[in-house]
């Protein structure tokens, strides 16, 4: 049941209505049932997996806490280690088994020429692929469980109510692709009765509509252009290679942030707040800044549960660089069991190392050069150049992220480096999709939202009072936005990109 599907359009109002009609004490149970139904609508059997992991982590959390209270720290630590192993082993089995097998088989196949000199045939060492179906959202709820048991180990109070704990990972608005929640914030909201607020409800509707537009009108229209470009990478000229790469940058942002908006909006309809995941990432002035703005809940998770435990930045520069690289490599691998994700992680890892080193040079350096660079970055030109530079770097990373093979990634990059070469690979696909209209609408919408206060001030009082939409007018506006999103959407919807992770 995709957020952008008709099934969800039916499911969400029913869930919301039931939520508000029931007294507080039954709401968690209702949400859990709704969330399990939502999850099992994809593949029922994986509901068992989610339930099993929930039970294991619930009791591990309690065990860790009781050991800490009884001052048996080593036993608490042992329970934590067991918990992390169970969670990571589950994730690894479902996500990385085939990746490990195919990587191993490639190594074995590479031994082929040595066959005459070996006592065995290298082919006999290869294994058949298992073709395991990845349970949706596993990467997200496993990270939430690890965060939970780690924080309990660090001294946070565990969740006593099993229903509430189950809901922490299963909550349908954030179940499949995050945001990766922190249980302390979420449980607080579950425990305090939600009070209906029409303002918040309307905010939720606006957010869902915004997310729907990003997903169906922008990301889904860009998807075929990107696919056409990356599938014909070697035929792309300079302009079209850039276009394909930029189209993917916008697609992945709109797809993922659209999903997040719809999830956060759905939660808001029931009075919950989920953390935001994006903050204008393509306006980042550096790579470090980018990771504070892109997939914020994942980057903060990686920081808290990987980078800092590895030693963080409070160690020697070489160790810090190692920590950064390792965090980004594993972050890349988290996205998918494929080498191109590892390369993407490595690119960002190296980029962050250079970024940190440069920041150290500029901010802590004493010389005239350091001073000049610092002042330059504070100018408008410097800011724009920093943004463009960061975006170009991120774009190169996205090429590796999107391309299915290294060859295809290099072909797109080669195209981007050949500005004089022309091609018409994308022309027909672009013509077929109303993407420019959708982008124009979104740009106007963002400008209006960004300048809403100034616009309101500019309109004289009686007019602004008359114009301020009352309920019927607002309903009409929401309905129009919905029709607009559907109208600009292509006939066939694409699944959310992050559902594959």
């Amino acid at each position, binding site marked *: 049941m995709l957020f952008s599907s008709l099934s969800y359009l039916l499911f969400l109002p029913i869930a919301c209505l039931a939520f508000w009609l029931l007294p507080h004490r039954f709401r968690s149970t209702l949400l859990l049932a709704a969330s399990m139904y939502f999850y099992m609508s994809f593949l029922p059997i994986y509901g068992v997996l989610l339930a099993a992991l929930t039970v294991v982590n619930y009791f591990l959390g309690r065990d860790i806490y009781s050991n800490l209270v009884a001052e048996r720290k080593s036993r608490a630590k042992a329970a934590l280690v067991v918990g992390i192993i169970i969670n990571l082993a589950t994730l690894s089995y479902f996500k990385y088994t085939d990746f490990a097998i195919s990587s191993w088989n490639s190594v074995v196949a590479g031994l082929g020429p040595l066959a005459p000199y070996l006592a065995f045939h290298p082919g006999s060492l290869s294994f058949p692929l298992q073709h395991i179906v990845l349970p949706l959202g596993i990467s997200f709820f496993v990270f939430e469980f690890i965060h939970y048991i780690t924080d309990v180990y660090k001294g946070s109070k565990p969740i006593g109510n099993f229903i509430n704990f189950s809901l922490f990972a299963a909550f349908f608005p954030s179940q499949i692709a995050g945001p990766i929640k922190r249980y302390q914030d979420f449980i607080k909201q579950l425990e305090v009765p939600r009070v209906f607020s029409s303002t918040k409800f309307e905010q939720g509707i606006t957010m869902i509509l915004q997310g729907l537009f990003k997903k169906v009108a922008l990301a889904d229209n860009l998807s075929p252009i990107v696919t056409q470009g990356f599938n014909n990478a070697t035929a792309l000229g300079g302009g079209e290679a850039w276009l394909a790469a930029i189209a993917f940058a916008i697609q992945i942002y709109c797809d993922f942030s659209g999903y997040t908006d719809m999830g956060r909006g759905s939660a808001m309809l029931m009075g919950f707040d989920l953390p935001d995941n994006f903050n204008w990432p393509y306006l980042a002035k550096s790579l470090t800044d980018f990771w504070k703005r892109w997939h914020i809940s994942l980057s903060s998770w990686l920081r808290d549960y990987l980078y800092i435990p590895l030693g963080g930045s409070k160690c020697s520069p070489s160790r810090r660089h190692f920590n950064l690289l390792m965090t980004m490599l594993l972050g890349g691998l988290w996205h998918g069991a494929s080498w191109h994700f590892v390369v993407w992680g490595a690119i960002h890892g190296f980029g962050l190392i250079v970024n940190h080193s440069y920041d150290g040079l500029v901010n802590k350096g004493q010389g005239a050069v350091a001073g000049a660079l610092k002042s330059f970055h504070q100018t408008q030109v410097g800011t724009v150049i920093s943004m463009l530079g960061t975006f170009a770097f991120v774009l190169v990373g996205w090429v590796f992220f999107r391309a299915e093979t290294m060859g295809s990634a290099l072909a797109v990059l080669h195209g981007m480096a050949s500005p004089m070469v022309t091609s018409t690979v994308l022309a027909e696909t672009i013509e077929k999709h109303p993407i420019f*209209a959708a982008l124009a609408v979104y740009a106007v919408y963002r400008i209006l939202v960004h300048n809403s206060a100034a616009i309101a001030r500019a309109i004289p009082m009686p007019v602004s009072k008359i114009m301020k939409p*009352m309920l019927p007018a607002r309903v009409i506006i929401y309905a129009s936005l919905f029709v607009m999103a559907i109208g600009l959407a292509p006939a066939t919807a694409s699944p959310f990109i992050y559902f594959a992770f």
Partner: protein
Amino acid sequence: MGSNKNARKSKLSLASGLTAGLQGLTYLALCIAALEGLFYLAAVGDGEHVFPDMKVGYKIFANKRITQRNEGFGCFLLNSFGMQNDEISVAKPAGVYRIAVFGDSYVEALQVPRKANYLNIVARDLSAKLGREVQVLNFGVSNYSVAQDYLRYQTLAKQFRPDLVIQVFRVEEIGKLLPMETQSLLFVRPVLFPGPNNDVVYDNTCVRQFMAGKEGKRLLATNWLRANSRIWGVLSFMWQQAQVFQGETQAKAQSMIGTKKSGPSFSLPTDQTRSNYAKCYWYMMDRQLSCFKNECAAQGTKFMFLRTPMVRPGAHDLTDNDTETMLLEKTASKLDVPVLNLDKAYRSWAGTHDDGTNFSAGGHFTAPLHKWVANNLTNFLYTDTKDKQ
């Protein structure tokens, strides 16, 4: 005092309700205008191109811009006569050779830009070859049968006084011969039965039934919106999606609770069945074609058949119907009408399998196939015209 206060309060709430209502109406008008403008600029919501017609079953809208994105891409302005053609004058300019082409969506060609369809290529190339202007008029309409083509000739095309009428007879054309009860406009057809005096008897019972039914009434009632509103186009699309979803959900629910009705399931008949069907009903087709040809001849218009290949939607192999081909050739010979069999030519040119190069996912011609058909048709017409000159 209290009642005064209450009266004032109810007056106030009435006033604010009225204000809210008026404001809502204003916003509704503004939103409609904004959405129509946006959808017009984005070429969205203008996919519907036919409307119900009591005589022919359905017709193409006149002067409507339509955009087709499901299969290839095409954005066209239909002309004032309701044709997938550039604007034309009824009077034939002196020296112009006019060809009128009849057929279904393969002729209508909404899947490629108008300039790239084979009719336009033939017009351009044949004009160049003959050294005189050749106009090729597109009378194709999605899913039209030969009977509808003949009626379209009588009600529309005749006035253009074509020099040549080409009846496109794609493989499985005979499948559209018989009357059928339907809730889908593109299947609403009158039937021409063989009459007692070598003529045909017009029967539009199915059309009348459709018009009297729920869907027919809905379409008639919303004709203006379907012709002019792009918002309506989007809403119709949403409605169709919702109906598909409802059907799927019902089927799913029925299969879950084990109440799925086991009825006759539809599957394509065997080659033998299709062959027998063609043989059985060819007399009707033969009569329709004879009358069509004779009426053209009475106007001094030449007549020919163009047999084109077909791939079923979603399939990758050419559909065979040798019996139909044989029967068509027999009728053509009887009527002394030339046949250009491009189904046969295609098989020796490209084989029977297609990987999506020549046929789109919906089974229609892609631009390269339009070019190939145009080349063959141009050469045929050039030779034919030159020989007779």
